[in-house]
C-alpha cells in the first residue's frame, strides 16, 4: 500500500482568545491520514477545527505541536514546496470579483505556469464540468453563489494538483448547486484518481467520502469509513407516530428532554429517534410508551449525534415561558400576504407572492440564494416598501401603518446584528430602551430574557466574544423583549452546530405553542420539518406551498423534494422561453 498523501500525528494549535489573555485550542491532539486517490471528509460543526487543520496542510499556519507531512514534506518548514504541488480552495474562495470568469482562470493558470497548449486541453474540460462555458465574459462578482464556488473549484483545477484541499465548498450554497458541486468532486476522484480532502458541516455529505474524520471542539471523535460512524447508532433508531391530534414537533420536543434519548428530529409528520445505549433492547424511553415505535436503519447523522453526545453535556431543558401570551387572533390570519411584488428597476425580485400564516404557526420560507426570501422578509418588516400587493400584519396594513405593525413583531437578522463591544446586559438594556420599555417593566423584561435564554453566566461578556450559540440566544432574547406576537427569523441556524440547532428549535417550538407566530428562512432542508407550512421560492416566485408532509410526498427526503420542485419549475421556464 502506498504511503498516505497526508500524515498528521497529534496536531495541536491554539489561538489567542480575543480580548482576554489565554489561549483557545483549535486543534487538541488530532491525527489524520489521507490516502492517495481517495475522498476524505472532515466532518464537524463550526468551530470544530476543520479550517485550522486544512490551513496547516496548506502551509498557511504552523502547528504548535505534533508532526505533519504532506506529500512527504513538512508544510511548516517548506510551505512553498507544498504549495507548488497542491490545490486549495478556502471557504470563501478568493475570486477577484472585478475580474471576469476567464480572467480569473487565466490568472491562476499563469500563476501555476500552465502552458497555452495545456490550456487548450484543460479549459474545455473545466467549462464542461462546471457549466460555466457561456459565462466566461461575466464578472465573477455577478455570478450566483453556486457558480462562484464552481469557478473557485475550476481555478484550483487549472492544472492537476497532487492533492486537492477543499474547505467547506458547499457552505451557503443552495441544495441544487450543492449537488452539482458534489457531482464534480466525485467525478474528479473516480475518473481522474485525484486525492481530495474536503471539510463539511453537512452530515449527509460525509456519506459520500471513502473515509471520514469526525471533529468536535478540536478533538477527533472518530476516523473510519462513513459506515463505521453510522454503525455506532445501529439498533438504536426508531420512528414514532405522534398519533392523531398531536404534532410531531411537540412530541419531538418532549423526547429531547428525556435522558434516554440521544436525538430526536421531526420527519415527515413523525419523529425519528436515537436511543441512548443504556436502554435495554426492546425497551423504549418512558415518554414513547404506547406510540408503537418501529425500528429504522441508522444514518450517518444518527451515529454522529451518538458520538457528539458522548462528549457534550446534555443541555438542560430549555422550555421557554412567555410572561404574557400573544393576543388571541382576531379571526383570520396573523400575517397575510397577497400578490406581493418588489421590483428593482426592470428586475423583479419578488413576483406575486401570496401566503398566510395563522397564530401560533411556524412558517418556513425555503429557496436557493437570490430566490427573494430576504427581500420578502424586509417588506414584511416594513424595511422596504413593496412595489405592489397587500401586506397585513395582525390585521394592520404594513404600508399605511408600518410603525404599528412593527411594534408587534420581533426580527432576528441573518448576521449577528447586536453591538459586539457592548456586554450582554448592555445590549439588552439598549434594545429595551429602543422598544420604549421603562421602569419596572423594562427591568422585568431584561430579567426574563436573561433567565429564559440562560444568559446569566455571560452577563458581563462583550457580546462579540460570546460563543456562537450564545450570540444566537442573545439575538433572540433581544428580539423578544417587547413581547412581539410575531417573530421573523432570517437564516437563524446557519453556522450553528447540530446541538445548538436542536436547542434553538426547541425554543421556537415552545414559543409557537404559546401562540407566537414564527416565520423563518433556512437552507437546512431538514429544518423545514419543524414548520407547519412551508413555501419553496425560486426566482421571486412561490413554486410550492403546503405542509412538509405534502411537499415531501414528491420525494424521499426534504432536500430531494426541494430540488425536484425547483428543477421542474426551471425546466418549465426554459421550455416556455424556447
Amino acid at each position, binding site marked *: 500500500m502506498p504511503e498516505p498523501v497526508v500524515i498528521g500525528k497529534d496536531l495541536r494549535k491554539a489561538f489567542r482568545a480575543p480580548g482576554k489573555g489565554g489561549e483557545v485550542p483549535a486543534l487538541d491532539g488530532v491525527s489524520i491520514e489521507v490516502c492517495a486517490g481517495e475522498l476524505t471528509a472532515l466532518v464537524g460543526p463550526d468551530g470544530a477545527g476543520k479550517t485550522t487543520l486544512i490551513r496547516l496542510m496548506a502551509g*498557511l499556519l504552523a502547528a504548535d505541536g505534533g508532526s505533519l507531512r504532506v506529500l512527504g514534506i513538512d508544510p511548516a518548514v517548506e510551505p512553498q514546496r507544498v504549495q507548488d504541488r*497542491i490545490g486549495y480552495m478556502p471557504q470563501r474562495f478568493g475570486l477577484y470579483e472585478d475580474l471576469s470568469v476567464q480572467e480569473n482562470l487565466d490568472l491562476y493558470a499563469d500563476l501555476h505556469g500552465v502552458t497555452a497548449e495545456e490550456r487548450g486541453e484543460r479549459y474545455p474540460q473545466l467549462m464542461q464540468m462546471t457549466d460555466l462555458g457561456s459565462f466566461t465574459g461575466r464578472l465573477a462578482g455577478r455570478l450566483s453563489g453556486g457558480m462562484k464556488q464552481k469557478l473557485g473549484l475550476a481555478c484550483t483545477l487549472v492544472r492537476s494538483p497532487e492533492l486537492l484541499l477543499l474547505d467547506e465548498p458547499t457552505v451557503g450554497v443552495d441544495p441544487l448547486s450543492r449537488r452539482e458541486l458534489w457531482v464534480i468532486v466525485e467525478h474528479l476522484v473516480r475518473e481522474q484518481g485525484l486525492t481530495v480532502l474536503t471539510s463539511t458541516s453537512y452530515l449527509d455529505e460525509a456519506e459520500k467520502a471513502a473515509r471520514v474524520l469526525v471533529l468536535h471542539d478540536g478533538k477527533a471523535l472518530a476516523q473510519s469509513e462513513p459506515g463505521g460512524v453510522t454503525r455506532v447508532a445501529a439498533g438504536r433508531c426508531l420512528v414514532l407516530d405522534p398519533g392523531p391530534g398531536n404534532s410531531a414537533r411537540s412530541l419531538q420536543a418532549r423526547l429531547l428532554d428525556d435522558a434516554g434519548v440521544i436525538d430526536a428530529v421531526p420527519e415527515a409528520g413523525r419523529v425519528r429517534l436515537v436511543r441512548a445505549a443504556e436502554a435495554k433492547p426492546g425497551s423504549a424511553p418512558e415518554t414513547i410508551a404506547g406510540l408503537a415505535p418501529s425500528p429504522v436503519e441508522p444514518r450517518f447523522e444518527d451515529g454522529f449525534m451518538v458520538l457528539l453526545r458522548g462528549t457534550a453535556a446534555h443541555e438542560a431543558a430549555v422550555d421557554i415561558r412567555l410572561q404574557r401570551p400573544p393576543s388571541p387572533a382576531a379571526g383570520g390570519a396573523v400575517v397575510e400576504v397577497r400578490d406581493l411584488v418588489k421590483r428593482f428597476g426592470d428586475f423583479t425580485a419578488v413576483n406575486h407572492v401570496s401566503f398566510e400564516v395563522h397564530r401560533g404557526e411556524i412558517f418556513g420560507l425555503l429557496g436557493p440564494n437570490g430566490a427573494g426570501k430576504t427581500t420578502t422578509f424586509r417588506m414584511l418588516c416594513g424595511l422596504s416598501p413593496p412595489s405592489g400587493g397587500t401586506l397585513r400584519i395582525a390585521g394592520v396594513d404594513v404600508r399605511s401603518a408600518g410603525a404599528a405593525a412593527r411594534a408587534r413583531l420581533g426580527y432576528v437578522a441573518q448576521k449577528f446584528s447586536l453591538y459586539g463591544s457592548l456586554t450582554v446586559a448592555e445590549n439588552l438594556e439598549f434594545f429595551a430602551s429602543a422598544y420604549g420599555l421603562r421602569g419596572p417593566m423594562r427591568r422585568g423584561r431584561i430579567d426574563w430574557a436573561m433567565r429564559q435564554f440562560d444568559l446569566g453566566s455571560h452577563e458581563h461578556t462583550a457580546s462579540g466574544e460570546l460563543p456562537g450559540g450564545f450570540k444566537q440566544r442573545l439575538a433572540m432574547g433581544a428580539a423578544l423583549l417587547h413581547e412581539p406576537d410575531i417573530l421573523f427569523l432570517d437564516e437563524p441556524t446557519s453556522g450553528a452546530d447540530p446541538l445548538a440547532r436542536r436547542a434553538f428549535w426547541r425554543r421556537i417550538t415552545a414559543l409557537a405553542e404559546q401562540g407566537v407566530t414564527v416565520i423563518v428562512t433556512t437552507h437546512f432542508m431538514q429544518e423545514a420539518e419543524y414548520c407547519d407550512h412551508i413555501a419553496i421560492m425560486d426566482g421571486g416566485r412561490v413554486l410550492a406551498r403546503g405542509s412538509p408532509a405534502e411537499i415531501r410526498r414528491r420525494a424521499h427526503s426534504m432536500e430531494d423534494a426541494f430540488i425536484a420542485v425547483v428543477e421542474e419549475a426551471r425546466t418549465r421556464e426554459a421550455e416556455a422561453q424556447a
Partner: protein
Amino acid sequence: MKDQGTSRAKLRRIAALVRKEGLQMIRDPATVAVGVVLPVILILLFGFGLSLDVRNVPLAVVLEDSSAPARNLLAAFALSPYFRPQVVYSLQAADRLMTAGAVDGVLTIPEDFARRFSAGDARIQLLVHGSDANRARIMESYVEGAVGAWSARQSAEEGAAAAGGPVNVQSRLWFNSANDSHYFLVPGLIVLVMTLIGAFLTAMVVAREWERGTFEALFVTPVRSGEILLGKTIPYFALGVLGLLLCIVSGKFLFHVPIVGSLTVLVAGSMLYVMVALGVGLLISSYFRNQLVASQLTMLATFMPALMLSGFLFDLRSMPLVIRAITYLLPARYYVALLQTTFLAGDIWPVILPNAAVLAVMVALLGYASRAVTHKRLG
C-alpha cells in the same frame, strides 16, 4: 512537475499579477477617482477656490508721488473689491499701522513713480504681513494683478507711445521674510497626490485582499511573497507617475508655473517618493488587514503630515522645535524640499542630493521591512 523556481516562471507570475492588478485598477471607479480625478479637482480647488477667500484687504498706501499716474493707480486699488487702501504720507505711519495689525500690507508708490513710468521702468514696493504665509502669497499676487491690469489699461488708453512699460512690483514679506515662493501650489499638490496614490491606494488594495479572502487562495500557488509585493507595486507606481504628469501639465498650462530645474530630476525625485509612499502603504496594510483601519491610518500617518508638516502649507521654520524635529521623520518633508528647489530654483545639487539620498534610504528600509512582514501565512 514543472520547475516553479526559474526566473522565467517568476517573470511570468509577476506579469500575471500586474495584469490582474491593472484590470482591477481600471474597473474600480474609486481608484480612477483618487488617481486621476482627484489631482485635477485639487488643482482647481487650490488654484481657484482658495483665492476667493481674500477680499477687502486693508492696505496702507504710502503716496510719495502725487502725480496723476500715481493717483490713478491709487484709484484702481480703491475701486478693486479686493483692497481697502488707506493713504498715509510717511513710511513710519504705515509701519505703525502694520505693527498694530490695522493693515495687512504697505504699498509704497515712490516719488519718482510718474517719471519712471513714462520711461517704462516704474517700481512700487510692497511689504506684506507674512505671519499667514498663504494670505501673504495671495495678497502678493493680487497686488501684482491689480498693478498689471492698471498698467495694461493705461497703455490701452494713452496709446502705445505715451504709455510706459510694465510696473515692477518689488515685494517683501515682513516677519517671515524667507517665504518667497509664488508657486507653492503645484509642488504642494504633487506631494499630496503622490501620497494619496502611493500610500493610501496601496494600503487599501492590500487590505482589501485580506478582507475579501483573496490572498488565501493566492498564497497556496507557486507565487512567492516578493512577487505579490512587486505585483502590487508596479501598477500603482505607474498610476503615481500618471498623477504626477497630470499635476505638472495642469500646473504649467493652467497656472503657468515655471519649472526652473530639469524635468528629469523632477520625475526621478518623484519616483523615489512614490516608492517611499508605496512602502508605507504596504507596511501599514500588512499589519492592519482591514480597509477602514488601513485607510484611516494612512491618512493620519501620511496624508495629514504631508499636508501640514511638510513645509507645503506651513513654513517649517516657524514651527516649534519639537514639531520641527518630528518633520525630519516625514518623507514628505524631503520631497517638498526637492520639489520646491526643482520647480522654483533649478537643479541645485547641494539641495537635491541630500534630500534624494534620504528618500533613497527610506525606500531601502521600507522595502526591506515590507518584504519581512509579508509572509504567505495567516494568523
